[in-house]
Every structure is written in structure tokens, then in C-alpha cells.
């Protein structure tokens, strides 16, 4: 146990603590940090309009993708679990592949290309819904929506695999016992037996989903540009990347991270309380 925690503290806890401290400083990575008190935070909430927009986008995004992805992960893991191991491995791979292959965004760029060759535009024009192509990836009205769709498509990731493994750890005899006690169909079986037995994995999945839903940045930057048109797909983390890696204001960037961190903590607390009630 000790070796793990020494490494864990050196490479994970220490940097987090340092970042938390840095959020109270002005630090440009060249000169040593100078103490700034709460000024980063007041600036963030009082002066920074773009941050407010980013925060709004992120909360909306997380409120939709978080729960939907979480349920999709579980649902698909549970359905796939019925197949024999070899077939299940192949199906799992296919569903998981957006998370491993590098060219994921290419498909979506083709689908939502701005000219009339883009699949979405071509379809809508051919069917007479629109007369001229829509600028899907540049029009602020559609950008957040597209971001949500793509993220949902990517959602069968870490928690999905954890659920698949978790389902194999559920004791088979529980199902037999349940059937004798009057469990009639697969949905009852799910609610009364599978879900309660999988509570540890559900907790794990929730934490992972929260950290993914609130920390969205990669998809937005790759697909919709960075910074995006009118900041329509700007999120808390892209805001952070902007300040951290372009403007070199690491103190301010750390303050953004700290705020995001507190939001996630709060969400986690609420969700863990809800999960304790599952299957009761």
C-alpha cells in the first residue's frame, strides 16, 4: 500500500495542492508567483463576462450529457452482458471504439460540413427542408447542440467498461433466488437485484461521468474551433486553457480550475446521496 501512496501523493496530490495555492497568486510561469489573495476569484465573477458564458454553457452541457451518458453506459453494458464472451468482446469494442480511435471528429466534420456536400445538409436539401446549406459548426445557434450530440456519442467510455466488468461480479445465485421470490421480468430483475448489487460500480461511474461532463473541452476545441464563434461552445475548461496556455496567467487559470472543482464536489455529494437510495 505504501509504495502506491507515495507515488500517488507525489504525482497527483502534490500538483493539485500546488494548483490550489497558485489560484491565490499571480503567476506567469517566468517570474516566481506573487500573492494575490482573492483577487483572481473576484475578477472571475465580477469582471469576466466570457467566464459567465462559459459557466452557463458548461452547466447546461453537464446537465444533459451527464445523466444521459451515465444511463446509456449502464443500459448498454447491461444489454451486452447477455451475449457469450467472444461476441460480447467484439460488440464492446465497437461501442467503445470512438474512445480509442484517433480520427473520431472526422466523421462529424463530414456529417456537419458547412457546404451542400455535408451529409446533414445534403439530406435536408434533398428532402426540401432547407434551400441553402446551414453553417452547422460556425453558427452559434447550433454549436452547443452539436457539442452535446457528439459528447453523447462518445459517452460509452470508462464507466461503460467498468459496468461490464461489474455485471460479471454479480452473484448468479441472487437471480435464481429473486426468480423464486417473484421477480417476473428483466426490468424488475434490474431494479431489485442487479442495481443494488452493483452499487460500488455505480458510484465509480458517477464520479467518472461528473468529471467528464464538467471538464468538456477537447471535443469543443477540435470540432468547433478554439476559441469558437461568439464563444458559443466555450466551456469552463476551454476558458482555462485560454488563460493557462495562451495568456500564461497560470494563477488565474488555477482559480478557474478551483471553481470548477468546487462545482464538481457539490454535484458529487448530491449524486452519491441519491445513489444510496437505488433499489430500496
Amino acid at each position, binding site marked *: 500500500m505504501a509504495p502506491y501512496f507515495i507515488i500517488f501523493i507525489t504525482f*497527483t496530490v502534490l500538483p*493539485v495542492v500546488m*494548483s490550489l495555492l497558485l489560484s491565490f497568486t499571480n503567476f506567469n510561469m517566468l517570474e516566481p508567483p506573487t500573492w494575490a489573495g482573492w483577487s483572481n476569484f473576484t475578477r472571475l465573477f465580477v469582471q469576466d463576462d466570457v467566464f459567465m458564458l462559459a459557466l452557463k454553457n458548461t452547466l447546461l452541457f453537464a446537465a444533459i450529457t451527464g445523466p444521459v451518458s451515465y444511463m446509456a453506459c449502464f443500459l*448498454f453494458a447491461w444489454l451486452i452482458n447477455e451475449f457469450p464472451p467472444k461476441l460480447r468482446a*467484439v*460488440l464492446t469494442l465497437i461501442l467503445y*471504439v470512438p474512445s480509442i*480511435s484517433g480520427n473520431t471528429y472526422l466523421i462529424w466534420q463530414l456529417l456537419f460540413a458547412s457546404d451542400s456536400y455535408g451529409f446533414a445538409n445534403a439530406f435536408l436539401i434533398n428532402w426540401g427542408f432547407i434551400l441553402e446549406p446551414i453553417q452547422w459548426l460556425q453558427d452559434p445557434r447550433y454549436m452547443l447542440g452539436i457539442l452535446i450530440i457528439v459528447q453523447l456519442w462518445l459517452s460509452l467510455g470508462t464507466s461503460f467498461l467498468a459496468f461490464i466488468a461489474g455485471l460479471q461480479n454479480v452473484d448468479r445465485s441472487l437471480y435464481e433466488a429473486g426468480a423464486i421470490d417473484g421477480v417476473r421480468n428483466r426490468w424488475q430483475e434490474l431494479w431489485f437485484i442487479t442495481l443494488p448489487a452493483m452499487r460500488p460500480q455505480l458510484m465509480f461511474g458517477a464520479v467518472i461521468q461528473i468529471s467528464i461532463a464538467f471538464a468538456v473541452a477537447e471535443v469543443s476545441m477540435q470540432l468547433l474551433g478554439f476559441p469558437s464563434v461568439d464563444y458559443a461552445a466555450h466551456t469552463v475548461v476551454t476558458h*482555462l486553457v485560454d488563460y493557462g496556455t495562451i495568456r500564461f496567467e497560470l494563477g488565474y487559470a488555477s482559480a478557474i480550475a478551483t471553481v470548477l472543482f468546487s462545482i464538481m464536489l457539490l454535484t458529487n455529494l448530491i449524486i452519491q446521496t441519491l445513489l444510496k437510495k437505488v433499489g430500496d
Partner: protein
Amino acid sequence: MKTRKLKAGKRLNRSWGMDIALFILIGGVASFMALPLVFTISNAFKPIDEIFQFPPKLIVRNPTFKNFSDLINIFSDSWVPFSRYVFNTFFITITGTVGHVILASAAAYPLAKIKFPGRNILFSIVVLSLMFTSYVTQVPNYMTISWLGLINTHWSIILPAFGMTLGLYLMKQFMEQIPDALLEAAKIDGASEYRIFWQIIMPIVKPAWLTLIIFSLQNLWTSGSVKYIYSEQLKTVDYVFGQVGAGGLVRTGPMSAVALLMLTVPVTVFIVTQSNIIQTMSTSGLKE
């Protein structure tokens, strides 16, 4: 509550109608999810004019191995032999993954099953650290690694990978499900903690560590050695493959071959581990 008689051979709580409906649902979703994979495979065999064709075709029409032979030509005259990059990648990936799985499991066991003071605090720190954005910890991380004198060694990637948070959390959650009675029985029979860990805990949580292997491999396989490593002979395959792309538009063909090659190892490991994830929990001999 009414009780039903169990018919032998009949599957519990399943109807064929629902089975078929769900199968169609999965099939539909899966075929859409498979697009990037199909695209990567077919792109690798496309001649250059098909790669640049617009709008792109999903399926290759005149398959060719030219992209792969071009790739071999590119590497035939590099001063660091290509096999050295391959060795570096495999060394980092295998050492990192094996170390992480063993260390994280060994740390998860006491956290899940042995009561000691400070256990809950320690565990909350683990969960909380999962939620901190990695973008801002990069700079402090670099400083730590440089203080330890690990810059420009493979250990700058391997050591942090040993301490990945995800693994500990995953293993701990799975170990929690193991009934305490099983462990107590083993203790009464005279098994040491060490033996309980290797012969009881680890076989039961096999699905968990097989899954963890995938996560760790995925993390290390394309870890990108650029940040901490500057000696050419220590760099990894994903780095040199990236350099192929830096050669510009003419390298688009070899790049699509690269994309396929980089996928082969993770996909193979994925299939092997996933098909081995099977029922392990046995409560035989336990009466509670």
C-alpha cells in the same frame, strides 16, 4: 408474494420478443459507432487519389499496400533504428501497466477491507483528485518531475502512471463487493494477508483488473514522450509517427497507414481482455 416453479433449461426472466427488440437497438447504435473504425481501416488501403476524394467514400475501391511500403521507406534511413522506438513504447506501456495494476490493487485491498484510522479521509482524497482538471496540474507536475531528476528518462512517464488515481478507485470499488465472511474464513484457516490477497482477492476481481489493463494501456500507448523526453533514442512510436505527419500533405498516405497500425495493439489487447471477463464471484461454501 407468489412463488413460481423454475423450469429447467428456461432462461430466467427473459422473453424472446424483448430480446429481438433490444438486439435491433444495439445493432443500430453499434453500426453508427463503428464508423470511425471502418473508416480508419479502409483509409489505410486507399491510394492517394481516393484519400483526397471529396466527398470521401467509406469503402476503398482500389485497395493498395503502397501506404505501408512508403512508411517502411521513410523509416529505412532514420539514424535511430525504428525498432528502438518500438522498444521504448513497449517498455513504457508494459512496465507502466503491470506496475500500476499491482500497486493499485495492493493499495486498494486495505482501503476496501481493513479498517484503519484515516481510511475514509484517504479515500476521499483519492476520489476528489479524480475531479481536478489535468490542464492546470501540468506545470506543477513538470516541476515535481524535474526536482526528482526524472526529466529525459522513461521513468518520467512510468512513475506517474504507477500512481494513476483511476486504478485505485476502480479496484477498491470491486473489492468492496467481496463478502467479509469469505476473508474471515480464510483467516481462520490460517492464510496470511499476503496469501488472501493473491489467492482470493485477485482471482475474484479479475474482471476489474482486466478492465484496468485497458485503461492503463490506452493511457500509456499514446502517452506522447515530447513533454519530458528530449533524447531522440528515448522517444516513442507515437512521437515518430507524429513526425511522419509533420512531413506535410505528401505524407497523408503513410499517415493513414500509421493510424491503422497504432490501433492494432490496443484493439488486440481489448479483445483478449474483454473476452476473458467472465463470471468469477463464487460464494460456494459460504452460508450466511
